[in-house]
């Protein structure tokens, strides 16, 4: 019997209405695909990070790391001295570039102990020695090993030479080993080169330092006890982690970004969920007579349930499977951009994003599709079960009833108003209530506001339509308005699709624009020093994937570069950027050289006080002072005037917090310090970026042309400060790519929903439209009338979306996002953006009306009048 109902009703309805079924399926599939692609990308990110950890950690039980410049070599001897340590293998990890093209990817250089490293890491299929004669390799100082993949890509073979930027400038190295794409090579996508550890330390300016030590624990010893012993021995500056803990740290690092994408995916899915709700609703109201007849013939409640559940759950199943394919291709196409975004913002090492789709993903997508459809079915099915068999006897006539605005809309609007007020209150109190600031509560506040929009929307749309209807407009326009007002329930459910999809577009646009404007505005401010150009190594500064330069370069440049500012006694200044972990959170340290005159500093963007005062505090002659970004102050629970203890290579140091600044280099927070102070405690002579103040008589472009040959000879890059702006803008684009795609897909789903709703509404009004045509309406008038209906509904829906969403976006940007991502962002949305989005919204509404309008204009009168 179930099979009969499915075969003769559920399936037949789907087959007999292919276009409508396709629209619904596509809408649901796109919603599922967004959910799935975000899930796949998040999984791939975590897997890539895990793979990195797995391949770098190899067989070791524990790994010792410390931020910034690594740690002193004496640590190795201390570790080796512990009885539970079977082996301790040191490692140097460095980035370097072999060409200066803007698209160049960094090579990862590992400095390893050639004789011992293979005991924990594999470099060749089947393990074994990394090169046949490691001693001979070590004895030749210019030896380097690359992967077979990379060598083949660059048409290089054994004994060929490659040029690399070292602390002494460019040097030539000979390829004396080729390794398979396994272990660390696989983690870095084949872009890996290996040197002997002492050679690496010398060439990359890491003398006397190690980046990590991997430990093998004695078989009888306890890993947990050794970990605790090491922590006590080495102090809080060191992270001693097993694989699981390293993985956990990485997951925490990307969590906030993944939370935001999950939330956007969820909202986009809600749009597609509305399509199911609306389609089920209209399908049931359209088939009242059929349901009544079935009831008259003795169909029980469960027959009606089976009939509709079969139809929509089958549709959801097909849509979910279709969504899996679309989601996979979304994920595949966004993987590289997402990896770049994460690497530049969070300094992660996501190199190999392999999108894998497994049975659990299919199951999750199908469950999501079926569950959402089941939820969507509950209320319409309940209504269907109320349909009396007497419906069967009622004649099929034109519904001339003018329905009043149902009270439910008024109630919904009140509830919506309450929800929106709660959102406003929650945002307002978030500043003072810690429990509201959590990453779990803030998305709920966002959803609360969005629910308010959905609940208030129909009432406002119908009220505005009513006002528009009263205007002295041409007949056809008024008639279209009257048609929309005649069935408020249908009109409201149609408008919800567009409103919800469009609200998401507005929110994401407002968030992205605000981010872009705030961050680029900040970059403009901090790079506004006149007559300044930057000299950097090859590569991306923002991701810190570069080979830093030795500070000895600065006096050399000062004595040889022409065109320096003669009025500035210190025309060349440097900046060192390193990551630093404090209380398990990763921050950025920017250590600046003190200029001759602190009033020329532009990079300090104060929250309190003047830039000059903060600059003087930063370069205080006797007190070791830090300027901290506001997000960092919040994260560590400190204020200006407090002391912050940091475990440095020279031990724990208490730094005075001298100022609160606006900084966007890291969402967790940024520390500014004097480079002299940094060098004193970190013993690091390297610099990341050099700023040159040139002769004001020269333009910056002329100055770059003047020094370019000399700078290029050093294998450095000289750029205008605007280059940093371009790099930041590109990183922002990478970071926002996913949310941008999500918003357009959400709008597309909303458009499909709108098209579907209008189409269903036309079919419901077939007899009515037949009557109108029979009394003299032309095909052109019919076409125009339906287009006017869809465009007016779109116009008002978009207007309402703007009216409700812009104030909420303002709150979210100013409050919710600050707590979710850590950055305080200023709201930004221009009139130009408003008109652009309005135009797009009107266009999609108009487009949505074309097909239904053509269908209505083309109806055959005889069929329409006989239609049941």
């Amino acid at each position, binding site marked *: *019997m179930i099979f*009969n*109902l499915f075969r*003769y*009703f559920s399936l*037949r*309805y789907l087959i*007999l209405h292919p276009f409508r079924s396709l629209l619904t399926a596509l809408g649901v599939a796109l919603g599922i695909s967004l959910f799935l692609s975000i899930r796949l990308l998040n999984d791939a990110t975590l897997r890539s990070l895990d793979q990195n950890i797995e391949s770098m950690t190899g067989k070791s039980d524990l790994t010792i790391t410390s931020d910034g410049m690594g740690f002193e070599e004496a640590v190795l001897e201390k570790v080796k001295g512990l009885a539970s340590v079977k082996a301790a293998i040191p490692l140097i990890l460095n980035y370097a570039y072999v060409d200066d093209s803007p698209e160049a990817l960094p090579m990862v250089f590992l400095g390893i102990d050639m004789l011992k490293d293979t005991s924990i890491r594999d470099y060749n299929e089947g393990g074994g020695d990394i090169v046949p004669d490691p001693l001979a390799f070590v004895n030749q100082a210019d030896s380097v090993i690359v992967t077979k993949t990379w060598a083949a890509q660059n048409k290089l073979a054994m004994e060929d030479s490659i040029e690399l930027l070292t602390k002494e400038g460019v040097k030539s190295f000979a390829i004396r080993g080729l390794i398979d794409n396994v272990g660390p090579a696989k983690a870095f996508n084949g872009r890996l080169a290996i040197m002997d550890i002492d050679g690496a330390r010398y060439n990359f300016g890491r003398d006397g330092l190690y980046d990590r030590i991997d430990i093998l624990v004695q078989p009888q010893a306890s890993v947990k006890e050794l970990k605790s012993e090491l922590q006590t021995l080495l102090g809080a500056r060191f992270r001693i982690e097993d694989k699981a803990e390293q993985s956990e740290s990485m997951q925490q690092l990307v969590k906030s970004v993944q939370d935001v994408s999950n939330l956007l995916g969820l909202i986009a899915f809600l749009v597609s969920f509305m399509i199911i709700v609306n389609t089920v609703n209209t399908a049931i109201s359209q088939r009242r*007579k*059929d349901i*009544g*007849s*079935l*009831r*008259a*013939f*003795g*169909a*029980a409640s469960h*027959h009606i349930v089976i009939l509709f559940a079969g139809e929509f759950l089958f549709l959801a199943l097909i849509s979910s499977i279709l969504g899996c394919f679309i989601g996979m291709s979304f994920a595949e196409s966004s993987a590289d951009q997402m990896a770049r975004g994460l690497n530049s913002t969070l300094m992660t090492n996501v190199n190999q994003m392999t999108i894998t789709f497994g049975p659990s993903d299919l199951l999750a997508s199908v469950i999501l599709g079926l569950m959402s459809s089941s939820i969507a079915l509950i209320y319409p099915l309940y209504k269907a079960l109320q349909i*009396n*068999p*007497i419906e*069967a*006897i009622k*004649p*099929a006539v034109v519904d001339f009833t003018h329905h009043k605005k149902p009270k439910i809309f008024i109630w919904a609007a009140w509830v919506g108003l309450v929800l929106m007020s709660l959102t406003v209150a929650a945002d307002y109190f978030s500043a003072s209530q810690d429990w509201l600031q959590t990453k779990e509560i803030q998305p709920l506040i966002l959803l609360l506001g969005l629910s308010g929009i959905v609940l208030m929307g129909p009432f406002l749309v119908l009220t505005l339509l009513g006002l528009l209807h009263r205007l002295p407009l041409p007949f056809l326009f008024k008639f279209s308005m009257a048609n929309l007002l005649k069935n408020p329930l249908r009109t409201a459910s149609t408008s919800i699709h567009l409103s919800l999809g469009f609200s998401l577009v507005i929110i994401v646009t407002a968030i992205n624009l605000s981010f872009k404007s705030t961050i680029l505005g900040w970059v403009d401010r901090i790079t506004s020093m006149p007559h300044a150009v930057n000299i950097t190594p090859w590569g991306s500064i923002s991701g810190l994937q570069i080979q830093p330069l030795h500070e000895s370069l600065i006096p050399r440049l000062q004595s040889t570069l022409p065109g320096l500012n003669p009025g500035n006694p210190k025309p060349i200044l440097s900046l060192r950027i390193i990551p630093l972990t404090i209380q398990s959170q990763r921050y950025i340290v920017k250590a600046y050289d003190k200029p001759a005159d602190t009033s020329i500093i532009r990079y300090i963007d104060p929250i309190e006080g003047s830039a000059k005062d903060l600059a003087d505090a930063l370069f205080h002659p006797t007190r070791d002072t830090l300027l901290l970004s506001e997000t960092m102050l919040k994260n560590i629970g400190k204020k200006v005037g407090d002391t912050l203890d940091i475990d440095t290579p020279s031990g724990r140091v208490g730094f005075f917090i001298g100022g609160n600044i606006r900084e966007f280099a890291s969402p967790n927070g940024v520390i500014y310090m004097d480079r002299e102070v940094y060098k004193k405690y970190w013993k690091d002579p390297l610099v990341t970026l050099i700023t040159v103040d040139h002769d004001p008589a020269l333009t910056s472009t002329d100055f770059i042309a003047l020094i370019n040959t000399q700078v290029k000879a050093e294998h450095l890059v000289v750029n205008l400060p605007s280059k940093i702006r371009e790099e930041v803008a590109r990183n922002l684009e990478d970071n926002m790519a996913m949310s941008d795609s999500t918003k357009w897909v959400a709008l597309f789903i909303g458009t499909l929903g709108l098209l579907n709703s209008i189409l269903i509404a036309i079919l419901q009004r077939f007899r009515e439209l037949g009557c109108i045509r029979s009394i003299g309406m032309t095909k052109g008038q019919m076409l125009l009338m339906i287009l006017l209906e869809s465009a007016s509904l779109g116009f008002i829906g978009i207007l309402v979306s703007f009216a409700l969403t812009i104030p909420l976006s303002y709150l979210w940007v100013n409050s919710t996002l600050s707590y979710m991502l850590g950055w305080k962002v200023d709201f930004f949305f221009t009139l130009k953006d408003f008109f652009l989005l309005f135009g797009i919204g009107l266009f999609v509404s108009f487009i949505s009306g074309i097909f239904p309008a053509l269908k209505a204009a083309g109806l055959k009168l005889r*069929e329409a009048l006989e239609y*049941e």
Partner: protein
Amino acid sequence: MSFIEARQLRKSYASADHEVEILKGINLGIEKGEFISLMGPSGAGKSTLLQLLGALDRPSAGEIIIDGKDLSRMSDKELTLFRRRRLGFIFQFFNLMPTLNVLENAALPCFLDGKSLSSVRGFATETLERLGLGHRLDHRPHQLSGGEMQRVAIARALVNKPSLILADEPTGNLDSKNGAEVLSILKNLVKDFNVTLVMVTHDKSAAEVADRKVQLLDGVVV
């Protein structure tokens, strides 16, 4: 006792500010195998009486006993099963399912009873052939004329071999030729299938075909 007994049957509907009594104490007996027509002007209560006799609605007062079973004491589920297994319906607007073909439409009540098409194909096909639709089995409703659609509806009403068929203006949407054909079919099926037929109609000539005419006026039998 008659096959159908309606005793002091009353039915009221609540309007905006008052209650409208449609049936005001109907007493009616119909014998097994009898073909009766219910006549009366609009608002007389014909369709309401048909709905009550067809177990589509419950009376406000009084009782309806069909073949010894008191409908007013039955639960919703029992009424549903009663309609499915014991009654057949013929509507003015045919109410065929647009997704089903002629044969499937005729077999619809059996599907609802958990039977497969193959188990009722023989009887349904035979009935449809008898009604002159043997060549239309695979057609869908929109491919049929009004008369043909009503004949499919008649076949559907017969497929579960009911003891009572209720027809609501079965010729109301047909031309005179098709109307006459349908009436002739109805008249014959009472004999051939030994069913009781209650037909609501406005049409005096249609009412003449019945064995007995029952006239309703303002909710009472006159």
